[in-house]
């Protein structure tokens, strides 16, 4: 290592004209370097997002053409969830009334409560079936969210079904109503 001549007079002189350079220690204080190292590490750790995508498994049933092949569900254990536009959620238990009096409005936050309540009010857990009916206007996110809700609440029996025209009309009407209420 290159050494600087730092002897500035002070040292003991051996003789006239002979300057002895003082030996400096080669040890460097590494504390700032360690600081810098750990600063960089923390920076890299915090800026790295764990962008590992996960996958949600979805297994579809085979289309049953004959009505006798189709799965039957007990009316008392069924809850139907309809997805509307702008993150609206509607649901009804059992079958839809003619007057649609059991058609209720909800949202993605409250639907969990509804599902849990229904799940524990059903006499036998195996009768608990959720029917999901996404309408034309709902987004892919809504579908994934509701499927996720099934996973969160451990609903093992659920089905993704096409919406019927009566239901889609009801969804539309309710959406208009809620839009009018907001204005």
């Amino acid at each position: 290592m290159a050494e600087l001549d730092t002897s500035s007079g002070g040292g003991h002189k051996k003789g006239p004209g002979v300057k002895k350079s003082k030996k400096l220690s080669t040890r460097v204080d590494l504390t700032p370097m360690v600081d810098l190292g750990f600063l960089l590490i923390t920076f890299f750790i915090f800026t790295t997002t764990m962008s590992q995508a996960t996958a949600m498994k979805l297994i579809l049933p085979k289309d049953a053409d004959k009505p006798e092949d189709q799965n039957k569900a007990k009316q008392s254990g069924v809850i139907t969830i309809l997805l509307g536009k702008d993150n609206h959620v509607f649901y009804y238990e059992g079958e839809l009334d003619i007057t649609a009096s059991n058609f209720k409005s909800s949202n993605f936050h409250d639907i969990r409560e509804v599902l849990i309540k229904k799940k524990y009010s059903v006499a036998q857990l195996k009768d608990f079936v959720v029917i999901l009916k996404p309408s034309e206007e709902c987004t892919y996110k809504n579908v994934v969210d509701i499927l996720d809700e099934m996973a969160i609440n451990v609903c093992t029996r659920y089905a993704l079904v096409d919406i019927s025209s009566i239901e889609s009309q009801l969804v539309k009407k309710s959406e208009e109503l809620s839009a009018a209420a907001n204005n």
Partner: protein
Amino acid sequence: MGRAKLPRKSTSIDMTAMCDVAFLLLSFFILTTKFKPSEAITVVTPKSVAAKVAPQKDIVEIIIDKDGKVFLTMDDEGKKETIANALNATKNLGLDVNAFKKAQFFGASFASLASFLKLPEDQRKGHLLPGIPIQDTANNELVTWMTLVRDAYQGQKPNLLLKGDNMAKYPAFKSVVDAFKKNEFLKFQLVTNPENVPEGTDLWKKSQSGEKRED
């Protein structure tokens, strides 16, 4: 009385070892960080509690972007070659098999596929391309694509992935699922971003009690 004199020790510690460790860790983190490849199709995936990491190998991925346009990607070049040859034989499209093999994704109708392959790679951007036509149920080209994929894999099951954008509408998703169903692909996986399980829910209780999740 003589008191034992404690020798004064210097408080400075040798930092070399610590410095070594710090930089070793630093270089480790830098080298193991994988950069996200810039994607031609921008898709913001929804979040889910699913904990399984999406497969990376042997994949056939269908991408739905925010306008509901559908793209197909697959990683096995051998299978792509089979598909290109099958397309040339059955539909007489005159495709450049080599370009087909190298293409990152496919996003055009069969009729315009040849001109799509002639585009240079950097001009193939999701928002400029028409996507695979699926809107029309009578002429859902994805059904044909999936048939080709199924034939190319000859009984083996590829990892079928569906990556959709938050804003994509349900009909696009439904057409894709219909195309899967028609080709007997009944198991597939939705690509999502991880999210924590909300506390107090049944799934949370299950994972707390140490039960294994079967997703």
